[in-house]
């Protein structure tokens, strides 16, 4: 093809290519001060040939994100009706919702939907979130939205859990008790009219039942479970046994514990019950444990149904006291726990056992229970208390007069304290503070709830930017 270049031509060619390269780089030097503003992908000029440096000085400059971009989630607590749809559709289970039934309406959301559930816990773990946006799609009141905030790094993984719950732990406990008390009172009135025998006992059992059921709602329940639950209510009514609030602890655990534990529990229970379907065996003392875990896990069925099922199950349990179910349950659960949350399960088992022992309503057991169960145990304690006290105070609203010191330490978890702090970026310091002071009940240093929304991209918030 080409001749081998002569000496002189080689020299000239190398000079030529050198100048060519210099011209190319020289053009870039001359355009060094030309800069287009950072363009978002939606800008029509996004793919136009760029001139000048393409660096984006990030903290000061940001590329515009699409309006429908999916970044950090925000939940408008005022508008949430606690329907749990977002938690159920979430592919990665990053949303944790805990609700309990309110006595009457809690007002309306901004789109006019009536709120019937208290929402003590609405946690979103943005560390798990995969930004699919399904939760925002299913939200009936559009209270759950994706914000344009994408820079929210944290030094502590726990800070990725954003708390949108409506109440502080203190408020939560108080409102629960009040609500349960009022509901119990109402039911008691009903049950008295319906059931002739031991009216007192009946009312107690029901109030307990309801609270337990409510938390269960959040958990996803399989169709079978729902069926069993439905059947159980019937049995309970027939037996009229004194209801006792054991199942509750399970409920709380559900949230915390991963689903894996639950299915195992069910299986174990099944052998006991032999045929868990409602049709086959309406009366069986054993099913209790089974029912509880089930409900906790998959509380899919409508709230009301769940409630009923819970109420039934406890009644059954109480009537024929049988030592088997518990011991069996615990070890089994633990085994199951191997997969993930062994600790939590163990706690649950403990909580259960105390509840069973306590069965006769006693106001005092709380303190004991709390320390053990801590986070998960809460519901059970409350139930017990409710049944015992039964003082029907109608006020559901969020009055906070009685912060109960004891309660707080127990609750520990992450539930935001009373002061609904404005959006403050969750920092490790805050988290540590929150964790430490539990025993000092009343006015704990308010944990700054990390509200992601608060930070606007504009603001140079102290948190992530630097």
């Amino acid at each position, binding site marked *: 093809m080409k001749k081998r270049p002569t000496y002189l031509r080689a020299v000239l060619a190398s000079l030529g290519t*050198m100048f060519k390269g*210099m011209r190319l*780089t020289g053009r870039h*030097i001359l355009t*060094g001060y030309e800069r287009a503003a950072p363009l978002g992908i939606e800008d029509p000029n996004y793919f136009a040939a760029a001139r000048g440096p393409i*660096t984006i000085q990030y903290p000061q400059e940001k590329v515009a994100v699409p309006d429908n971009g999916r970044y950090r989630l925000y939940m408008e607590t005022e508008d949430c009706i606690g329907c749990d749809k977002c938690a159920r559709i979430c592919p990665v289970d990053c949303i944790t919702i805990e609700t309990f039934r309110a006595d009457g309406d809690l007002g309306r959301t901004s789109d006019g939907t009536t709120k019937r559930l208290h929402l003590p816990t609405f946690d979103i773990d943005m560390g798990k979130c995969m930004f699919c946006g399904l939760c925002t799609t299913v939200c009936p009141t559009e209270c759950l939205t994706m914000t344009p905030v994408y820079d929210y790094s944290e030094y502590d993984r726990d800070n990725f859990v954003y708390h949108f719950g409506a109440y502080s732990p203190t408020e939560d406990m108080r409102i629960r008790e009040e609500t349960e008390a009022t509901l119990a009172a109402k039911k008691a009135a009903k049950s008295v009219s319906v059931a002739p025998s031991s009216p007192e006992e009946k009312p107690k059992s029901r109030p307990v039942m309801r609270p337990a059921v409510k938390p269960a709602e959040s958990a996803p329940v399989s169709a079978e479970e729902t069926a069993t639950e439905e059947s159980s209510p019937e049995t309970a009514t027939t037996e009229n046994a004194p209801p006792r609030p054991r199942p509750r602890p399970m409920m709380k655990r559900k949230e915390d514990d991963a689903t894996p534990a639950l299915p195992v529990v069910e299986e174990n229970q099944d052998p006991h019950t032999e045929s868990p379907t409602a049709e086959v065996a309406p009366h069986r003392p054993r099913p209790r444990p089974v029912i509880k875990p089930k409900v906790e896990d998959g509380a899919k069925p409508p709230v009301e149904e769940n409630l009923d099922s819970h109420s039934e199950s406890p009644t059954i349990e109480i009537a024929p006291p049988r030592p088997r179910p518990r011991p069996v349950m615990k070890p089994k659960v633990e085994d199951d726990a191997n997969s993930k949350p062994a600790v939590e399960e163990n706690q649950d088992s403990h909580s259960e056992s105390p509840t069973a022992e306590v069965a006769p309503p006693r106001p005092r057991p709380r303190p004991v229970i709390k320390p053990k169960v801590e986070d998960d145990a809460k519901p059970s304690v409350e139930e017990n208390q409710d049944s015992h006290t039964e003082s029907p105070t109608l006020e559901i609203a969020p009055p906070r007069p009685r912060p109960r010191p004891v309660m707080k330490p127990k609750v520990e978890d992450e539930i935001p304290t009373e002061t609904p702090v404005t959006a403050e970026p969750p920092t490790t310091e805050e988290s540590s503070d929150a964790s430490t002071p539990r025993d000092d009940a009343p006015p704990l240093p308010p944990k700054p709830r990390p509200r992601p929304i608060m930070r606007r991209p504009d603001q140079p918030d102290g948190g992530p930017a630097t």
Partner: protein
Amino acid sequence: MELAPNILLVSLSLGFVALYALGAVYAERKVSAFIQDRLGPMEVGPRGLLQTVADILKLLLKENINPTAADKKLFALAPIVIFASVFAGLAVIPVGPGILGAALNVGLLYAMAIVSIDVIGLLMAGWGSNNKYAFLGAIRAVSQIISYEIPAAIALLAAIMMYGSLNMSTISLAQGLSAPTQVYFLGFADVTQLGGMLSWGVIRYPHLLVAWLIYFIATLAECNRAPFDLPEAESELVSGFHVEYSGFRFAVIFLAEYANMFLVGLIGAVVFWGGWATPLPNLMALAPGQAASMSVGQLFTHLQFGHLTTGTGVAAMAIWGAFWILTKAFFTVFLMMWIRWTLPRVRVDQLLKLSWKVLTPIAFALLAISAVWKLLEVSAHL
């Protein structure tokens, strides 16, 4: 004793070189950034102007680490030798008419010699570090600098033959309006009164443009600049002969490197690009008192740009001279940066081949051309 003014002069130039190095490092980073479509330093000061100040402050605060196995004396002495040799070269550079540290008659020879001492400093650093990377870098530096001194010296010789002097002041004068003899553009056009670029060496004698090219390429290698930065090849030798240096000593080596670029730029400017002479020519000749009777258009065509940008009086001429020669030197330094971020590093064999097979023969050819040209010019204008 004239010690005091000399010390003052030395201090001034030392301060200037230090300031220049700060600016050059900043410019280097900006040039590289722009070529790569980046922004470069932007955070410290407006547009990152104080970045290098911050860097040098950091370096000065750092510890001087002495490797245990190092030859302590050589290791400590090397940065001083490197910088001192480069800095001494500045003594013979005429910054303006009559403004220079040492008016040596062999100024150019001295400059070439003093730049070569740099090699000894590099070798001391590489050997004294007792580090294989440093030693390899030093070996490469020595071999390449010695190789490239030959074409550089011969190219300079080709120019010196045209001026007939090794005195840097004489060389500068010969290329400006104040030339002591007639200045012939291309050997026939008398541009003594016109001045400007036409009287610069590379314009008057076009073959000197090639000579300058050879000189420039050779000095790239002497300064260990890309594409001849084998002594510091980061990908192979970490950072070459100064890999063991830290803190102030590293800063001194760095300063010497940039000062060396500046020095060779100055020498090139003096020998090839007119020294402190202005590039702007005087237009039509103007007799005394003639200006009063001319129209605006006539005045424009008779503007004496050359005289305007050279100045009259010692102070004005010094300032203008310093301005022009520094501009030329800085442009040379910029050119070195531009090339560094354009061309990839050559291999060792390519490096030596370029020196011995290309630059040196061409330089000898240019030497011959200069000899013939000078002979013809002298005989033609007798």
